[in-house]
């Protein structure tokens, strides 16, 4: 059983997100995530798992209740502070969002340059990241020349350019074969072992069960089950 700590890294308290008058993204969600934890948000499409991640990235801004990251309430971040907030987290979008006309190396270099790194830093850091996510040998390839798994690795690599303490991945194995999905999860696990807090929204139950990590089940915007607080623990959990 995973214990809930007294000073959580991420804390949702009675969070409610409403789209329009009658559609709810989240209803009365309360949960905590510790620093260095690895947790899955699972549920059907439209259940609210992506909304949880988007609250943390401030893509979803209107909510009631409280969402705290490292002790700071997220609605205290104004528009001008969001860039700074994003640099404290790595975001892996569902569609990879790779630049099709740039090679793998340039995709990372572009992102690093955009956040203000010098060319020298780029030359040093990009090969390290590509090795870390195991696509160093494809540095000169264009995204369309990569497999789905390799594209996902590049997207994860790009999310690491700021050395973030938090990694958010939205359906990282959505369109991948089971074997490749497992490889991606192992990569995320490796990053977690290096101290990164990893939150993954996914409905790939087969892989999730085998990971043996915390699983938070969301249904119709509410937390249906949380393995960390006495919910069902799946086979293979550590």
């Amino acid at each position, binding site marked *: 059983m995973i214990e809930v700590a007294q000073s959580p890294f991420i804390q949702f308290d009675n969070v409610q997100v409403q789209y329009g008058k009658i559609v709810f993204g989240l209803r009365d969600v309360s949960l905590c995530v510790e620093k260095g934890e690895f947790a899955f948000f699972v549920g059907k499409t439209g259940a609210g798992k992506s909304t949880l991640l988007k609250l943390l990235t401030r893509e979803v801004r209107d909510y009631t209740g409280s969402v705290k990251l490292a002790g700071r309430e997220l609605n205290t971040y104004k*528009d001008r502070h969001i860039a700074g907030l994003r640099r404290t987290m790595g975001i892996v979008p569902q569609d990879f969002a790779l630049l099709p006309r740039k090679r793998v190396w340039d995709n990372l270099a572009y992102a690093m340059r*955009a956040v203000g790194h010098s060319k020298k830093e780029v030359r040093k850091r990009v090969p390290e990241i590509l090795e870390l996510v195991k696509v160093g040998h494809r540095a000169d390839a264009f995204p369309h020349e990569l497999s789905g798994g390799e594209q996902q690795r590049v997207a994860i690599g790009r999310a690491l350019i700021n050395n973030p303490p938090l990694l958010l991945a939205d359906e990282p194995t959505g369109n991948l074969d089971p074997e490749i999905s497992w490889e991606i999860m192992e990569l995320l696990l490796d990053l977690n072992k290096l101290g990164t807090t990893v939150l993954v929204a996914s409905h790939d139950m087969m892989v999730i069960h085998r990971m043996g990590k915390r699983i938070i089940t969301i249904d119709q915007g509410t937390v249906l089950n949380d393995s960390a607080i006495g919910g069902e623990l799946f086979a293979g959990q550590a």
Partner: protein
Amino acid sequence: MLDKLEFLFSESFKTFRRNGLMTFAAISTVAISMFLLGGLGYTYYRVNEYAQNTFPHQFTMEVFLKKGTTYEEIKQTAQQIRAVPGVESAVLIPKEKAYPKLLKDMNVPGLAEDKDIPIQDKFDLVLKDISEEGSATIASQIEALPTAGAGSVQYMREEQRFLDQFLGLLRLLGSLVGALLFATAGILIYNAIRLTIVSRRLEIRVMQLVGASRFTIQVPFLFEGVFQGAIGGTFASLILLVTYKVLAQAIVAFDVFGALPDFPLWPIMGGLAAAGALYGFFSSFMALSSPLRYR
């Protein structure tokens, strides 16, 4: 710092290639509107300058003094007239000098020169301001002098009115055509930037995902607008130069006004490029206001 600037510049130049047709449309419209605006502005300036330099000597104002004005009063009046704002010079034409000339001009042999001279002393005035309104103000101030009086001032009121109307029409025409074209150029720059934003939405999304500042995301688009405006303004000055040369040759050939002065290329190029850049900045700033909000 240089590293950062290089990144921002390279980003802004990328769209020149990628969004070439729209960029071309924006630059050419800025160039044409600036050409017409600059051309009309320069024509107005030249005509106005020509009028100011030439017409005052043709549009002289005459002030006839009352009969019996003494020499002392004439001296005092001369001082008063020269002190009126807008009067460049005032030359006394004594009746003793004017009358023989008048007789000679009229060719009337029967009038004896020893009779009482029937005309008055007068001043011939050259004015700095030859507008109808300016002349009327000067005339009324002079008519208020005791040695002059109502009706003592004569000038070419109608001719000045015509000149005023002509310059006014030129100004109105320039403003209307220029404003229309200027607005069109602004809309085109705005649209070019909007299209660029659409064509680069993935890059923008990536930048927002990794936490690039709004400054980094927006500045390339602002640069692009500034470049479009500045290049348009520069082209406009070059077209103006060519047009001016052609016109100058025609004017010399027809010998209407004599030779035109040299075209001041550098000040005009600098002015139009700066105006274009400023306008490009404004148009792209308007285009950026909402679509680049952090999402």
